């Protein structure tokens, strides 16, 4: 179980209000796409759930208990860059997650426990198609392969929530669609809640079961920091087909929100 709820969450940096009045109930196992223009607080939103930043006001609950104020193994993360450790080989990049878990002082495993952890790591690498590259260093991998490694790494500790911060933003379109084909079955299989921040609208609609748009609806030209971003659209995308087709499946037009809500109620 991994339901998230954000209750009246505000984030302020001094005078600057970044996020305001964020009220969200995120169901366990949902795939949330977060979109919005640059500077609308998408990354701040993600860092809140990650525990890297604390809300100025309000509370965030994970399965009913307040989030600890620091990152932890129940919330995995894949960043756009710098997600993997350059000084470790592909296998060791995944293995280190188990080493952190089992060896508190040295962070190293030996003997049977090490072999078991290696087996688990190899299984994960196979799932993301990197088994053949297990002894390479990340610098020898392409951008897509590095992101696949970062995903395998993030899944090692079986996080309840997986946070993706523009994970495919730096990849070429072909690699990106490969990554989409990879992430969806993994999400289905592991049943975790995924929150993905993205700039790519197509990706947001194609992958998510729910789309959240953050934006600043009010702007005071004399005091640009006076109003923060709020959730401007909250669309339910859960449906059978993986990609919605305009006019045939559900409307993609954000102004058709009422229609979406109606359908949700009917469902």
């Amino acid at each position, binding site marked *: 179980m991994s339901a998230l709820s954000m209750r009246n969450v505000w984030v302020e940096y001094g005078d600057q209000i970044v996020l305001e009045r964020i009220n969200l109930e995120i169901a366990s196992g949902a795939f949330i796409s977060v979109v919005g223009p640059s500077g609308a607080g998408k990354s701040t939103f993600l860092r809140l759930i990650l525990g890297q930043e604390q809300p100025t006001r309000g509370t965030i609950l994970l399965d009913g208990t307040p989030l600890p104020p620091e990152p932890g193994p129940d919330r995995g993360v894949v960043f756009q860059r710098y997600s993997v450790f350059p000084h470790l080989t592909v296998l060791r990049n995944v293995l280190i997650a188990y080493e952190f878990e089992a060896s508190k002082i040295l962070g190293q495993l030996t003997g049977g426990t090490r072999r078991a952890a290696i087996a688990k790591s190899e299984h994960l690498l196979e799932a993301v198609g990197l088994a053949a590259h297990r002894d390479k260093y990340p*610098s020898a991998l392409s951008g897509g392969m590095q992101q696949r490694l970062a995903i395998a790494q993030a899944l090692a500790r079986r996080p309840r929530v997986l946070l993706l911060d523009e994970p495919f933003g730096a990849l070429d379109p072909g690699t990106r669609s490969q990554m989409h084909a990879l992430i969806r079955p993994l999400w289905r299989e592991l049943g975790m809640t995924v929150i993905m921040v993205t700039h790519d609208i197509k990706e947001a609609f194609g992958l998510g079961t729910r789309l959240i748009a953050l934006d600043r609806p009010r702007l005071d030209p004399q005091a640009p920091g006076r109003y923060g971003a709020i959730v401007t659209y909250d669309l339910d995308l859960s449906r059978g087909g993986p990609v919605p087709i305009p006019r045939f499946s559900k409307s993609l037009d954000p102004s058709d929100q009422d229609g979406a809500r109606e359908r949700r109620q009917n469902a």
Partner: protein
Amino acid sequence: MNIAPNPRSGLVLGFLPFVLIAAIYLVASAERRAANPDDKLLPPVAEMADTVRRLASEPDRRTEEIVLWTDTAASLQRLAIGLSVATLSGLAFGLALGVLPIVNAAFGAFVAAISLIPPMAVLPILFIVFGLGELSKVVLIIFGVAPFLIRDTALAVAGLPKEQMVKAQSLGASTWQVAIRVILPQIMPRLIEAVRLSLGPAFLFLISAEAIAADVGLGYRIFLMRRYLSMDVILPYVAWITLLSYVMDYVLAQLARRGFLWAYVEERR
């Protein structure tokens, strides 16, 4: 800028300045010797070679020790102890400063201030506090080199992407585990490079301390021979010190390359 030497001509070009300076020395030495047979300033190579052979193989009449080797051993021991302590403290304090914001807030400015004190200015204090023995020389090297290593290490830690620390924590790592498994291995190549750059200052402090108060050591010998204008001892000693520090530099560079292959992958491509 587009004309680059091939490997062989590059080697030749690299040796050219050395050959040139040697040739100039030979000519100048011969000319001075021709004008004044007692000239001490530029002794001929044969005379220097003879002196080196004597220093390296015959025991001194007074101490019955072979001068070159006892000098070298004494100096290298001081240098090794000083540099090791400085490196270890650079690593430990630099990591603490870089990783823990509280430690940085408490000691960051302090270390920065300490590193601005000219080490030679405190040498008298060291002589007074630690006496004229080995300790004061070693402490001078530590005092001169450690603040730089600490600050460089702390900067190296600060230069690592924040994402890596967050990622490691999201894999369940504690602060200690992040420090030893994620940060420590990544700053080691940079630390070794910083130690390489510190070799020069370390020798400077060593020789200064030896020049002022010592009874054995490379720096002591040079400054002792200055009184007799014994260029035939001083010049080979300078060359010997240069060779020693070159070898140390080379060994450290190889250590970094062999031990931390991943750090030099980009470079090779």
